[in-house]
């Protein structure tokens, strides 16, 4: 099996699946072009995450990561929840195959977005709905070098004009001729 026991356990029995109807914050990341999509909704009370739920379209790792992130975030203060990183999630799961590490990025990102969304809402009640819609719609893959938006399949980044190719290990975009993949750390990028 390519996954650790912990990953399989969370995949089989994911915690906190669902959507909080009257959520205080919502975060969505990824899209089907990249392979995974996650959405987190949180309920906040006295600066603590009182409840968290997620939905995930994706592989076994993506589901396990979302479940783990939700478990780690539950009951934490917003500051502590923002300290949950892709690294700490992967560690808690007993490691992830390197071509699946990007799933852990998505999990932490989705939670952080939900928290940001909550903070924005606090700041500007009026703009809240637009913000959710915008942040969800704008979600794309990003160029690993300039953070410019990518559709996911193009040969070069429109923003920084770097030539891109597919990493043979994780399938993410990396600079043509790059020795080491920025996403999964594979040293042999070319097929």
């Amino acid at each position: 099996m390519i996954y650790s026991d912990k990953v399989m356990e969370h995949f089989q029995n994911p915690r906190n699946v669902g959507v909080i109807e009257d959520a205080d914050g919502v975060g969505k990341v990824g899209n089907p072009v990249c392979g995974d999509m996650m959405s987190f909704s949180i309920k906040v009370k006295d600066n603590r995450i009182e409840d968290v739920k997620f939905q995930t379209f994706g592989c076994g790792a993506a589901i396990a990561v979302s479940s783990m992130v939700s478990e780690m975030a539950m009951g934490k203060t917003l500051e502590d929840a923002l300290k949950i990183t892709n690294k700490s999630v992967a560690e808690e799961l007993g490691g992830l195959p390197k071509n699946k590490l990007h799933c852990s990025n998505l999990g932490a990102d989705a939670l952080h977005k939900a928290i940001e969304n909550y903070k924005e809402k606090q700041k500007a009640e009026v703009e809240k709905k637009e913000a959710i819609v915008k942040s969800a719609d704008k979600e794309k893959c990003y160029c690993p070098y300039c953070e410019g938006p990518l559709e996911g399949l193009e040969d070069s980044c429109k923003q920084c004009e770097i030539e891109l190719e597919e990493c043979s290990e994780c399938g993410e975009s990396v600079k043509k001729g790059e020795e080491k993949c920025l996403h999964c750390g594979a040293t042999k990028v070319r097929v």
Partner: protein
Amino acid sequence: MRRVYLDRIAATPLHPQVLEAMLPYLKENFGNPQSLHSVGQEALNAVEEARENVAHLINCEPSEILFTSSGSESNNFALKGLALAHQKRGTHIILSAVEHQSVLHSAKSLEKLGFKVSHVPVDKWGMVDPEEVERAFSDETILVSVMLANNEVGTIEPIGEIARICRARDVLFHTDAVAAVGNIPVDVKELGVDALSLAGSQFYGPQGSAALFVKKGVRILPFIDGGIQESGRRAGTENVSGIVGLGKAVEIAKKEMEKRNEKVKPLRDKLAKLLPQKVEHVFLTGHPEKRLPHHASFCIEFVEGEAMLLNLDMQGISVSSGSACTSRALKASHVLLAMGIDHALAQGSLVFSLIEETTSEDIDYFLEVFPPIIERLRKMSPLYTQYLEEKGK
């Protein structure tokens, strides 16, 4: 737990008679076929007998069969060997958009050497239109490669017609027939191809046993230099037991093919009919009729392939999501995308390929186990929630 294996395109079980035929060549008959002594000659005889069997199956001369280590090697050999041997005549190659990675990436390597590659589109069934191939020709075209049957969606391509077009223009034609040979009748003379790849592990032969047919008189560069094996075109001590196994598998396939298909096709049809009835938002991929008799492939909307695959595996069911060669990549299948299926749907690909041992009860078991898995995964899916919300509006 009940074990149900529905992943023939990845590997078939070894036929007991094939194993029996191989065993002496892993034990007492260990000779090197190139040795002049009798131990070596015994091995040589076995290799040549296997070559005759393979030639007999696809209707060619034994001298037109070169043994290789895998279908991927055969495809690399054909593309690179033919292109490089004929580059003085031109540097343009035509492929279909749904070829196996070993064909696509061989062509990519050739592009780095200065070749130009065109990819011919397919229709919604994954079918290549021979007229599109004709339109892709240029004065520089030297080689066309289109697969006989697609491993991911099962569609059988109009190879005979494409071969005719190539012949009329004096252009070489190779077909990757790995998913087809041993499973459906394949006759190289009838098809009119110049080169064809096949592999034993697709029809109860051993892994690591494969071959490339190259028509007599067609020039091809050696794939491995340094020896006289395989008429000097593929050096290296022969995988004698593997070749013997391939020869035996071929012999059995020739006799049993029809019977096997008569058994497996109704079960495949049952699966293709009942699955979309049992689960909503399920679509058959590939051509509904012109497809491999043991093959059924689907896209299951709102869920992702690996999550389905792992859940099924926990219930003892082995299936695949796309090609085994790309199952660890994260991107959607190039085959499904070429057929015009959108990314989200293409991520939910599930491929069933039945084996001789598959029973009607196996299909029933799958149909019983699958709906709750999908229900659970859809509950988890933001895409499904979004769909329900939009439907409710």
